[in-house]
């Protein structure tokens, strides 16, 4: 039975712009199996107080497919036997809501490291925590192997995560990451607030993807309330999102170059990122444009000389691009990156990997081309590479910087006049929306109850990038681990919630 025929038999609620089907447990599992056969991907899995939810993507229909299963006696059927990547989500669902994935692949805690005062803080009646044993990573199989524990605090001005590598000589045999250290309880803080108040937490899920998360959150809210923001707001959102992409890619290029000893690239990319951050501060009042995108529109209009300042900064970046492209493909750096951290297309597809990491191994989805308002008229160009390695990812980052410069030029050239936001009606409803962050597609699902957030889940690309990086690290040498980590731009705060 195909996925769609299972859905047809089920009851559904409106989850704009799609329908969310509520499946009995048997069909929930059947759909997971059918989705594999139909070539869908599992984008996210989460819960609320009484149901478990999954979000699939159907690449043929170009549609997101949200489905739910009621939780009965604290249990719901696990997805991890079919989608191994779902195990982290199941562990998160258990830690936050207390629902157990029956026959799940891994019952260990994920976000809950035994330090919170509460157990299952998002459940209807969270219990007080009692002293427990800290969770243990999987055992190492053989004595001849060596363990290398990296993190959780890396001391490198990076995010927090632990990576446990099992070494056989210089080769990594097993890589196990452990996240959750930066869990801040964002979902509990957002619940019961107005979308405008909750937006501050969406903006702080992931600092270098603050615009993307704010945008996906705002679009999901507007979908739930069934409103459309003024055209000027849409154009300014595109401008902010693309500035963030250029800045993030420059930061990544600088970091990788620094690690690979390509000092001249590090210096130029770091300097260009600074030029752009200052332009953003002048144009929008904040270097990262944090809290710039809000439900209903944007919080700030461009300052009088804002467009001019942005275009000038982009001019500075443009001028360096041919140098950067040559330097990037030059002998020193390319040799360092070619063949490193090679991700397979099939694995990336199964995990639902998008963004630069997905496009570097031939997966062409860029949600800007399909779902995000404001882009269609600018016809964004998307590049893919077949190689899947760190060199391909850097080439794509450079391509995307140039393309984003073009998109901002287009958005600012035809910037409509008019208001920059509208008030949101105090309504109830449900919506899903996405944005393309520097690491790939960000998805936000939420429910409004009389104008307040009743339930929410933001899916950061980190949920699929870490499992991909683990598999890529296995077979790599330990010397390349840091480079591979940076090349995927592995985030912690976003998936840590």
């Amino acid at each position, binding site marked *: 039975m195909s996925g769609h025929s299972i859905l047809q038999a089920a009851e559904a609620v409106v989850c704009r712009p799609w329908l969310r089907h509520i499946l009995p447990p048997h069909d929930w599992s059947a759909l997971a199996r059918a989705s594999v056969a139909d070539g869908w991907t599992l984008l996210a899995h989460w819960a609320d107080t009484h149901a478990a939810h999954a979000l699939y993507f159907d690449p043929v229909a170009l549609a997101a497919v949200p489905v739910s299963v009621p939780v009965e006696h604290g249990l719901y059927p696990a997805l991890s036997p079919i989608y191994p990547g779902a195990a982290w989500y199941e562990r998160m669902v258990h830690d936050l809501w207390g629902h157990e994935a029956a026959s799940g692949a891994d019952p260990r805690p994920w976000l809950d*490291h035994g*330090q*919170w*005062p*509460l157990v299952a*803080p998002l459940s209807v009646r*969270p219990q007080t925590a009692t002293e427990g044993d800290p969770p243990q990573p999987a055992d190492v199989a053989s004595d001849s192997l060596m363990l290398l524990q990296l993190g959780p*605090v*890396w*001391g*490198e*001005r*990076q*995010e*927090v995560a632990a990576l446990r590598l099992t070494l056989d000589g210089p080769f990594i045999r097993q890589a196990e990451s452990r996240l*959750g*250290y*930066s*869990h*801040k*309880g*964002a979902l*509990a*803080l957002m619940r019961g607030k107005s979308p405008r108040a909750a937006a*501050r937490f969406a903006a*702080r*899920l*992931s*600092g*270098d993807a*603050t615009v993307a998360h704010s945008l996906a959150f705002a679009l999901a809210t507007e979908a739930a309330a069934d409103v459309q923001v003024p055209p000027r707001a849409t154009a300014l959102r595109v401008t902010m999102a693309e500035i963030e992409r250029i800045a993030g890619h420059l*930061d990544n290029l*600088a*970091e990788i170059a620094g690690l690979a000893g390509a000092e001249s690239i590090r*210096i*130029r990319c*770091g*300097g*260009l*990122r*600074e030029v752009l*951050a*200052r332009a953003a*501060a002048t144009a929008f009042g904040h*270097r*990262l444009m*944090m809290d710039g995108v809000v439900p209903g529109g944007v919080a700030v209009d461009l300052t009088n000389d804002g467009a*001019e300042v942005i*275009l*000038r900064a*982009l*001019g*500075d970046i*443009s*001028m*360096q691009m041919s140098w950067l492209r040559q330097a990037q493909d030059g002998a020193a750096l390319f040799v360092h990156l070619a063949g490193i951290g090679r991700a397979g297309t099939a694995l990336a597809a199964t995990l639902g990997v998008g963004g630069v990491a997905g496009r570097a191994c031939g997966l062409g989805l860029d949600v800007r081309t399909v779902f995000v308002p404001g882009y269609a008229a600018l016809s964004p160009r998307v590049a893919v590479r077949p190689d899947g390695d760190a060199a391909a990812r850097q080439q794509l980052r450079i391509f995307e910087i140039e393309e984003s410069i073009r998109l901002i030029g287009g958005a600012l050239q035809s910037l409509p006049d008019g208001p920059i936001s509208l008030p949101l009606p105090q309504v109830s409803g449900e919506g899903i929306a996405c944005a393309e962050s520097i690491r790939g597609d960000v998805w936000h699902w939420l429910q409004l109850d009389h104008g307040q957030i009743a339930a929410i889940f933001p899916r950061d690309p980190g949920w699929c990038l870490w499992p991909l990086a683990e598999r890529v690290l296995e077979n790599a040498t330990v010397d390349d681990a840091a480079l591979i980590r940076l090349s995927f731009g592995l*985030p*912690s*705060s976003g998936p*840590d919630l």
Partner: protein
Amino acid sequence: MRRPRWLQGPRLKAEPAEPADAEARALMAARMEAAAQARLGRSLALLHVNTGSCNGCELELRALSNVFYDLERFGLRFVDNPRQADVLLVTGPLTRNLTVALEQAWDATPDPKWVVAVGDCAVDGGVFKGSYAVVGGTGLCVPVDLTISGCPPSPGRILTGLRTLLEAHAGQGAPRSG
């Protein structure tokens, strides 16, 4: 704004004359001072300790190494081992899951040492204050010598804070001891 030489040249658009940039002038003056300080052998080793940041503060800490700020000229450098550190630069709202990590970093840093809370989260928990998962502010776990507010604070602001420390270090030289 002072522009590196490789940034000068033809522009996308004809550019009006730039206003004199107070921040750039202050940075320049600071650089000269820093050179003098470095000659006197005053330098500080910084250890970044992430206690659950959103990564926004890290972006700006990384920016301290770009050509506009170039913090090494001030005798400031980042290290990755608490045993070599003089200053702990703490970011994030101190999540419960990282409290032990902060304590360990502090314990492992030899005296005399300073603790700088970087960003609104590290100052007092920021927007995450009151969450079940957050202790809220570096000072609730280890003694804090300097706070730098902002979400995130700009690199210029972080640098100003660190220069205050350098001056204290060079002056009476009485950092907090364990």
